[in-house]
């Protein structure tokens, strides 16, 4: 008899959305409260849960992200955020507390950009398991 994963897969479909929303919440709350660096790992976990309950081929068909492009984008964004401070005459990667105000949504701080690039880089692991 083959293994039937109905229960795991159906529950995963529900639970992934809880994890994903929570990950976004942590990403935007993390810079002033606890647990900002956790976010990359949590993003990764959401994908790992999908990979565990289905298999690699199904998920790479369902989520068409090219992880190699993503890693490239992530590395270049983190480089550019570092270089930006050189342009202004400060040492490489010096910390800024500049906020960009968006109407209606509130404010987004510049460190968010750096975290975003790190999250892209953390997809390295997932991309690795996918491409081999």
């Amino acid at each position, binding site marked *: 008899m*083959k293994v*039937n994963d*109905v229960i795991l897969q159906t*529950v995963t479909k529900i639970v992934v959305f809880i994890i994903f929303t929570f990950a976004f919440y942590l990403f935007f709350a993390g810079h002033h409260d606890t647990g900002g660096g956790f976010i990359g790992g949590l993003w990764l976990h959401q994908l790992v849960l999908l990979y565990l309950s289905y298999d690699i081929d199904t998920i790479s068909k369902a989520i068409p992200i090219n992880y190699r492009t993503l890693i490239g984008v992530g590395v270049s964004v983190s480089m550019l955020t570092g270089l930006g401070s050189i342009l202004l005459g400060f040492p490489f990667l010096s910390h800024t507390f500049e906020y960009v105000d968006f109407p209606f949504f509130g404010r987004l701080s510049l460190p968010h950009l750096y975290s975003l690039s790190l999250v892209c880089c953390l997809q390295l692991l997932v991309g690795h398991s996918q491409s081999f």
Partner: protein
Amino acid sequence: MPVQILLNLFIAALWMFLQDDWSISTFTLGYLLGLLLIWMTRRFFNEPFYLRRIWALIALLVLFIRELISSSILITRQILRPKLNITPGIFTLETTLETDLEITVLALLLMLTPGSVVIEVSEDGKTFYMHAMDIPDSSDMALRSKDKFEKAIMGVTR
């Protein structure tokens, strides 16, 4: 059912536009108004009023919690008994439910019935193989409560 919920949200948003007030309380008021309007025009839809399904969902949730409490009491009694008196075993159970969601909800419910854990689901999803703590008692209880669960699940999904 999705059409009715969308229509209801639309009525609530429209109410907020008309009132020119963007707060939660206005939205809730608009939603309640939408419920009333949909209830008044419910014969125009080809399906039953969607609150009935929400009611069935709440009944299912209450069933879940009751099963969880009663099975915890049973397992506590069995663990704390000075001399273990159990006859475990694996038995089969047939179901008539079809879609993945229904099967999963039934499996979760059965896992919470006193003294049974689903070990394996057959390939077509029609047969559950379950481990029971006390084979005549627990399997009888699971067989008896299965019909009740199936009816409660079908009230939500169909």
